[in-house]
């Protein structure tokens, strides 16, 4: 909604300014119209510009995570682990689905080799969202749509190959778009979806597929 305030102020300010210029005895309203246009311009551009800069600064952390995954020689594939198993909601990057994750560990040795335990956007989203309903669709609506405001709508469908979650009007920021960590953790929305699903199902969850078509995002989980 914040994105709509700026353009609305610009339109309002332009209308007031036009009225002030066309109606001779209303000329002083020009000051108010110009102020509304200025406020609209700044409100439209400022949050997006600041968000872009913060995302760029935070990229350093994701670059380090990418380098860590690469240095460990792990495939870029994460399993989202619920707090009932790992003590907090995390993702384990490992060659195979880990059966157990030591609490508080950064790395551990799984059956097939080393594994890395990472905090993800999903971890932080769960901190922000607090208690969630037991149903996945309800939980995602409550967290992603109502609390985080990262999508306008969400629909969940169960298919033989996994659970398909479809977001409409997605507006999630890209935190690590061009990096290896994206292949491992999935995008921001996929990460949050997987973390929420893992918490509700109380078992490790992996992202099978993530598709983005304009503002529609489809995430398939298993």
């Amino acid at each position, binding site marked *: 909604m914040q994105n709509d305030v700026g353009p609305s102020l610009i339109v309002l300010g332009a209308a007031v300014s036009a009225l002030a210029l066309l109606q001779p005895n209303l000329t*002083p309203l*020009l000051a108010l119209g110009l102020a509304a246009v200025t406020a609209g311009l700044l409100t439209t551009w400022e949050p997006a510009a*600041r968000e872009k800069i913060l995302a760029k600064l935070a990229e350093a952390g994701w670059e380090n995570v990418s380098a860590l995954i690469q240095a460990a020689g792990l495939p870029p594939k994460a399993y989202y682990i619920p707090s009932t198993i790992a003590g907090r909601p995390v993702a384990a990057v490992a060659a195979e689905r880990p059966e157990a994750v030591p609490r508080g560990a950064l790395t551990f040795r799984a059956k097939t080799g080393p594994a890395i335990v990472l905090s993800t956007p999903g971890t932080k989203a769960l901190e922000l969202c607090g208690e969630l309903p037991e149903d996945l669709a309800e939980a995602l609506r409550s967290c992603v749509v109502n609390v985080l405001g990262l999508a306008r709508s969400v629909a969940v469908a169960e298919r033989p190959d996994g659970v398909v979650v479809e977001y409409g009007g997605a507006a999630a920021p890209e935190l690590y778009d061009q990096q290896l960590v994206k292949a491992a953790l999935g995008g921001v929305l996929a990460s949050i979806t997987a973390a929420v699903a893992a918490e509700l199902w109380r078992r490790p969850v992996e992202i099978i597929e993530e598709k983005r078509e304009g503002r529609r995002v489809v995430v398939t989980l298993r």
Partner: protein
Amino acid sequence: MRYPLIALLALSGVASAFLTYLGANAVDVVVSTYTLIYWATAPFMRPLPRPVNYIHAAAGAALLAAFAYFAALRILAVLKI
């Protein structure tokens, strides 16, 4: 940045109301008053990230240019050139 923007809108609203009360219907007076308010609130708006500070500075420069034009017209009228 929220409070300086509110101040800009509030001061402009007060200035509009006062100029209407005075019956000052000249565009140059209104634009000059708004330019003054704009630059008075400008230091409180900053710091702004890069594309936005360019927009803010460009709008301020345009207002200053308009103010300079209106001031020049008034000075020329006084000097009867």
